[in-house]
């Protein structure tokens, strides 16, 4: 049957079966863990989540009412973090990518980023509290929290963007050079568009991290449950809300699970959005519209 009988010898087949069994088992464990997580959360907190819960303000420290102000604060924090980290990260990545003439500088910057990526988020929280809240004087605010998050996700954005740029086939750069284009022209018009899916993936990864972050925003954005009126108002991130309800508010555990469920959905939505975005982009590239 097989055109390659040697590969399908009896011993080989047995080994194949064992190998596949192990791989399947590993995959099943992962899926089971995820399913168990979602199911247990749905059972514990699913009943607490409703449309009213999403759009009404919290009462009695979150035990009653909804989480509207917390969701708004979270999204604002995310917005600030991305608005700061995305452009800075992109430019730093370009520096690292283009700095072929100063390999030492590039190495220094990239080592610093690696170290930065390993710093625990609580350290970023303390750093942000010192710098943004006290030294710069922004106080506990969405702005302080967002900027702290930006520092934290910056390495992820830079690294993924740099890698995406490096993954652009070398012949694209050569073709640009052969056409006598400037390096900036090549970067802006060819390399960045070609690297877009990778760059977007990196930013989504960073968004996920920022969305789920507790420690970095606890000391910088505060834990106010009021609806923020501006970026210099304090606000409570969803993850902080979950933490506070679960640990500090007696009888808050079921509401914590509900909030965690919302957080989980938000993370899922972010991923779905990025997936759709890159699918649309790919479809345009392959020209199914034509």
């Amino acid at each position, binding site marked *: 049957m097989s055109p390659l009988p040697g590969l399908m010898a009896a011993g080989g087949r047995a080994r194949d079966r064992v190998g596949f069994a192990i791989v399947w088992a590993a995959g099943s464990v992962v899926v089971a863990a995820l399913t168990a997580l979602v199911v247990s959360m749905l059972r514990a907190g699913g009943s607490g989540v409703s449309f009213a819960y999403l759009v009404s303000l919290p009462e009695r420290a979150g035990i009653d009412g909804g989480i509207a102000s917390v969701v708004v604060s979270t999204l604002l924090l995310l917005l600030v973090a991305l608005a700061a980290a995305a452009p800075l990260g992109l430019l730093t990545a370009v520096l690292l990518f283009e700095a072929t003439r100063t390999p030492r500088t590039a190495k220094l910057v990239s080592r610093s980023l690696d170290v930065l990526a390993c710093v625990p988020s609580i350290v970023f929280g303390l750093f942000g509290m010192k710098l943004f809240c006290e030294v710069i004087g922004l106080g506990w605010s969405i702005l302080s929290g967002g900027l702290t998050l930006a520092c934290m996700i910056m390495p992820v954005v830079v690294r993924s963007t740099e890698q995406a740029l490096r993954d652009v086939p070398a*012949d*694209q750069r*050569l*073709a*640009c*050079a*052969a*056409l*006598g*284009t*400037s390096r900036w*022209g090549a970067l802006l*018009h*060819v390399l960045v*568009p*070609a690297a877009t899916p990778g760059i977007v993936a990196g930013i989504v990864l960073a968004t996920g991290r920022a969305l789920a972050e507790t420690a970095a925003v606890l000391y910088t954005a505060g834990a106010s449950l009021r609806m923020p009126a501006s970026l210099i108002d304090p606000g409570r991130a969803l993850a902080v809300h979950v933490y506070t309800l679960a640990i500090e508010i007696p009888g808050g555990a079921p509401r914590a699970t509900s909030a965690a469920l919302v957080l989980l959905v938000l993370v899922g939505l972010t991923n779905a959005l990025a997936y759709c975005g890159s699918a649309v982009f790919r479809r*345009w*590239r*392959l*020209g*199914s*519209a*034509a």
Partner: protein
Amino acid sequence: MNGAVDVPPAATHRAPILLAPDPGPRLQALERQKLVVQDLRVCYRGLPALQGVSFSADVGQITAIIGSSGCGKSSCLLALNRLAELVPGSGVAGRVLLDGVDVLQPSTNLTTLRRRIGMVFQKPTPFPLSIERNIAFPLREHGVRGPEIAARVRRALVAVGLWSEVKDRLRSSALALSGGQQQRLCIARAIALEPEVLLLDEPTSSLDPAAAQRVEALLSELKTSYAIVVVTHNLHQARRIADRTAFFTLEDGVGTLVELDDTARIFAGARDPRTRDYVEGRFG
């Protein structure tokens, strides 16, 4: 011997057979040629990859470069528009005269040089942009503005025979085109800059026979306007389209030009036995 080449070739290799016995009138003709290469040498990390290459190319003719893999054909092309120097550790010496001016001089404006010497690679390299912007982006980089851009895009696409195929989807992605269309787009992109010399590195080797045939026909049309130098592995192709053919080979591990002559002479009655062996398939 070798009177037309005023840089004497290095003593370590055989001088290429370039000229008829009487160099007088040929010498003048040579100097009027669009592109004249004299004793071109290329090395990577100090190791010579190519040496003793002297030839010329002019508008109205296609010069084919043939030879086995790794004998420096592509290095030769990349040296002509100074792309070779993008390779770390590379060095290029000799003279490459474009209208009599040596482009290997440090003072050469590379942007202008690469506009005047266009290049097309083996693998089609469309940018991940729309068909239109693939051509418009380099034009803008070279300072072309306004309605001139659309006019040149159209002219270039007409010239490569793509206009009727893509005129209704100029805004859709160039990556959606077939391989042959992509390669013709790359040629259009190069000629939109109105170059004088067109270098092509195995432009049809990644295409199917029908698409390859279209590109070959296109090159034969384009040669009236450009000096074309094409590297090819396909001897039949050289025979079909080239007016003159150059044979490169490895000598002591270094690529060199053995012989350049009218294509008919190279394929029937080459002077050098190595050329005869190669074109008759007795090589190696």
